[in-house]
């Protein structure tokens, strides 16, 4: 094995408003032929900036220094025209968000052929042939038709496959994957990771895999760099990183990722007692349909059934998890329970009242007892309101006759409850971190003292360490206030940690429901089992076993 990429004392600095930010500090590493190198760290650790500097893709206020030699050629300081001979040709890159990384205005065929036109002397016919071949190689059906289509017609996983296909066109020696599966569902993630490993072997490439997920590292990598605040914490082969970590930070990351992990043998004690409980939400054959615009004048109406005759109930005091892939209808179900989405047919009873029969005033009374926390903490808080105003709003709306003093007291109390001090009251959302924003959102939901809290992917957008904190907070609040929670998530490990009961949804239907431990350890349906095994565990040996099992069954 020879050295393919050698980085020595690589530094990346950004200049912003007179300040210099060191994004990457004195980083040295090497990558051999045919090897997968993982760079892992939380957001802001400089892992993406490292590869962007190698590719010459830093923002205009960024500068790289030090050395990075690729196949004995120095990349740092290379002129753009020299660099353009290498990138896209010998080094290819795929990105986190396949939705925005493909140009929605030109056809897929045109985007792919642009690479070949730039780097080869192929004729148009050969180019087309090669594009079709590559789309086929990454498992895209009817590649000829796709060439004339656009990226927005494809699902997230398919888009990432197109990205990989375009990256492979020139037979690169190195493929850089920057969080390639972060935006995807677990089952899709599994397939894309397998595909990357598969094409790595077939096309004899090296891969740099950038991720924050130790499970992904365990599944794919041979060598690992652990980074924090731009500095290398530890590097080594995968076995030593996972089984005998030296740096404290690595140990901490491993501990955190195992805390919320499916393979954890410890069974969580469930708070559920056997006594008969009130039913807060009862849905009977609830159905929600969306009517899509007709393609032609006389075509039949296109109907998308997001929630298809779902019957379920939520008992007083329990934490009910709803899991499923994106598009499975779990968020629509939550919106319907909240009365934000009309039912097409069926019934939903909340606190004993039928949602379809209540008037506006009664709905408001119901909503007082039922609050929600959304996924994106930044966009669900009004950027023009201070924390105080945000928390005051529900009080104004539900308890208009409260005195000024008790409003102030309630707001301060509510903020302390979610672990923030009253000094945050005057701040605006953009002055808070993601975790703090989510705390404010939780505090806002708790202001009217609800009985039922619906968390719609409330921790999905957060970094691993912050996610842990928010989950702890939710659990604490739940037990202190005797709250009932509906917890919607695609992250199965989180669901397992906090839910008493789970509903597994697929394309608008309930696949399976039951107590969490039973669904997770003895799943009855194949879909549930697949969903569970798709979650990568931060344990390389187990991942290898799983991989072998998968390739055998295929």
């Amino acid at each position, binding site marked *: 094995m020879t050295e393919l990429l050698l980085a020595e004392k690589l530094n990346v600095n950004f200049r912003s408003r007179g300040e210099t930010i060191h994004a990457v500090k004195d980083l040295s590493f090497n990558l051999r032929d045919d090897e997968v190198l993982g760079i892992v760290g939380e957001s802001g650790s400089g892992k993406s900036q490292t590869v962007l500097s190698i590719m010459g893709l830093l923002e205009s206020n960024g500068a790289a220094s030090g050395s990075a030699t690729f196949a004995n050629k120095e990349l740092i300081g290379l002129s*753009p025209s020299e660099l353009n001979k290498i990138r896209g040709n010998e080094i290819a890159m795929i990105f986190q968000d396949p939705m925005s990384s493909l140009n929605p205005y030109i056809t897929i065929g045109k985007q792919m052929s642009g*690479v070949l036109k730039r780097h080869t002397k192929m004729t148009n016919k050969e180019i087309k042939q090669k594009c079709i071949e590559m789309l086929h190689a990454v498992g895209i059906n009817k590649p000829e038709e796709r060439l004339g289509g656009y990226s927005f017609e494809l699902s997230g996983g398919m888009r990432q496959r197109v990205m990989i296909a375009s990256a492979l066109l020139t037979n690169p020696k190195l493929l850089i994957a920057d969080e390639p599966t972060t935006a995807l569902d677990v089952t899709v993630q599994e397939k894309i990771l397998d595909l990357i490993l598969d094409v790595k072997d077939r096309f004899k490439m090296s891969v740099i895999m950038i991720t924050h997920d130790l499970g992904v590292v365990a599944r794919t990598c041979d060598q690992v760099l652990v980074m924090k605040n731009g500095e290398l914490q530890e590097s080594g082969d995968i076995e030593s990183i996972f089984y005998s970590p030296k740096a404290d930070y690595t140990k901490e990351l491993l501990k955190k990722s195992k805390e919320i992990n499916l393979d954890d043998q410890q069974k969580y004690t469930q708070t559920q007692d056997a006594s008969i409980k009130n039913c807060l939400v009862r849905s009977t054959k609830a159905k929600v349909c969306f009517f899509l615009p007709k393609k032609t004048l006389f075509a039949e109406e296109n109907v998308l059934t997001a929630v298809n005759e779902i019957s379920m109930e939520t008992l007083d005091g329990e934490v009910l998890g709803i899991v499923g892939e994106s598009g499975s209808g779990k968020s629509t179900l939550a919106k319907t329970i909240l009365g934000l989405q009309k039912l097409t047919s069926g019934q939903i009873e909340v606190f004993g009242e039928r949602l379809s029969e209540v008037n506006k005033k009664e709905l408001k009374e119901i909503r007082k007892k039922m609050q929600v926390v959304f996924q994106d903490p930044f966009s669900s808080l009004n950027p023009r309101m201070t924390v105080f105003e945000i928390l005051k709003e529900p009080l104004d709306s539900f308890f208009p006759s409260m005195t000024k003093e008790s409003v102030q007291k309630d707001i301060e109390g509510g903020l302390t409850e979610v672990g923030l001090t009253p000094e945050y009251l005057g701040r605006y959302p953009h002055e808070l971190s993601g975790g703090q924003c989510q705390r404010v959102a939780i505090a806002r939901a708790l202001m009217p003292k609800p009985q039922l809290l619906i968390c719609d992917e409330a921790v999905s957008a957060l970094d691993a360490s912050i996610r842990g904190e928010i989950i702890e907070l939710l659990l604490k609040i739940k037990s202190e206030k005797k709250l009932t929670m509906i917890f919607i998530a695609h992250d199965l490990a989180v669901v397992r940690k906090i839910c008493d009961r789970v509903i597994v949804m697929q394309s608008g239907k309930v696949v399976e429901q039951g107590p969490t431990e039973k669904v997770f350890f003895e799943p009855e349906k194949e879909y549930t089992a697949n969903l569970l095994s798709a979650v990568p565990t931060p344990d390389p040996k187990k991942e290898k076993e799983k991989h072998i099992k998968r390739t055998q069954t295929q």
Partner: protein
Amino acid sequence: MSNFRFVIGRFLGAIPTLLILICLAFLLVKSAPGGPFDFERSLPEEVEANLRAAYNLDDPVYLQLFKYIGDLMQGDFGPSFQYRDYTVTELISTGFPVSLRLGVAAILLALIFGSLIGSIAALNQNSKLDYGVMFFGMIGISIPNFVMAPLLVLFFSIGLRALPAGGYNGGDFYHMILPVVSLALPQMAYIARLTRGSMIEVLSSNFVRTAKAQGLPVRTILLAHVLKPAFLPVVSYLGPATAAIITGSVVVEQIFGLPGLGRYFVQGALNRDYTLVMGVVVFYGCLIILFNLIVDTLYGFIDPKIKQNR
């Protein structure tokens, strides 16, 4: 198929818009004090009574409106009150070519130079050039053309004596320069700012980063990836821009003494020449609706997402 259906749908949708426009304009014109036969030296009463009867001015307003719409549907704009021997249709067909010439030249100038300047500013973002362009852009937008036109005349005609200060002279090139420039400047400035903004946004998009990672040279990235999305906002602005050029031409034609439609419109309004004013309003209304329709259809061809949703 879908585009065709879209065009038909929009045509049908334009009918109520046009009807509302006609009614509002008609009522406004009628509510203005005075009438077409109020001269310095008043007419004998019998003559005026005969005139009013001949033009149906004694009917209730709603009947006049219905009759007017009825005539319009047969393509009849009616006779002019002021220019006795001309119909409104004849006046429009003599005035419009002048306005068309002025308007087309102005919009082309604004479009070409505006998008060019905006692109150059975007490609040199935060440089002195960029700040300079944006500064003059702001000035161009803020100074209305009735101020800009006299200033241009003062400088180029009276100061430098390089260009004629007014007159049409059969559409002579030198005579058209100042009117076209003063009409185009605010639009040019707006389009420049619009182009700059959207181009900066596209340049920082993830798909441009992908194109860079694929090793495409800057020129290819600009032509193949950036141009189309960056100019979408400019294309959709063309509709409002046409309306702005038309309203601007009313003022500019007056200032430079061009015998265009705008001048007829102003004189018609001052003389309470009901049919002439209405005729110009309806004609320009149709033109703006038509142009917006063309722009929206064009948009569908450029933006594949829109095409799919039609």
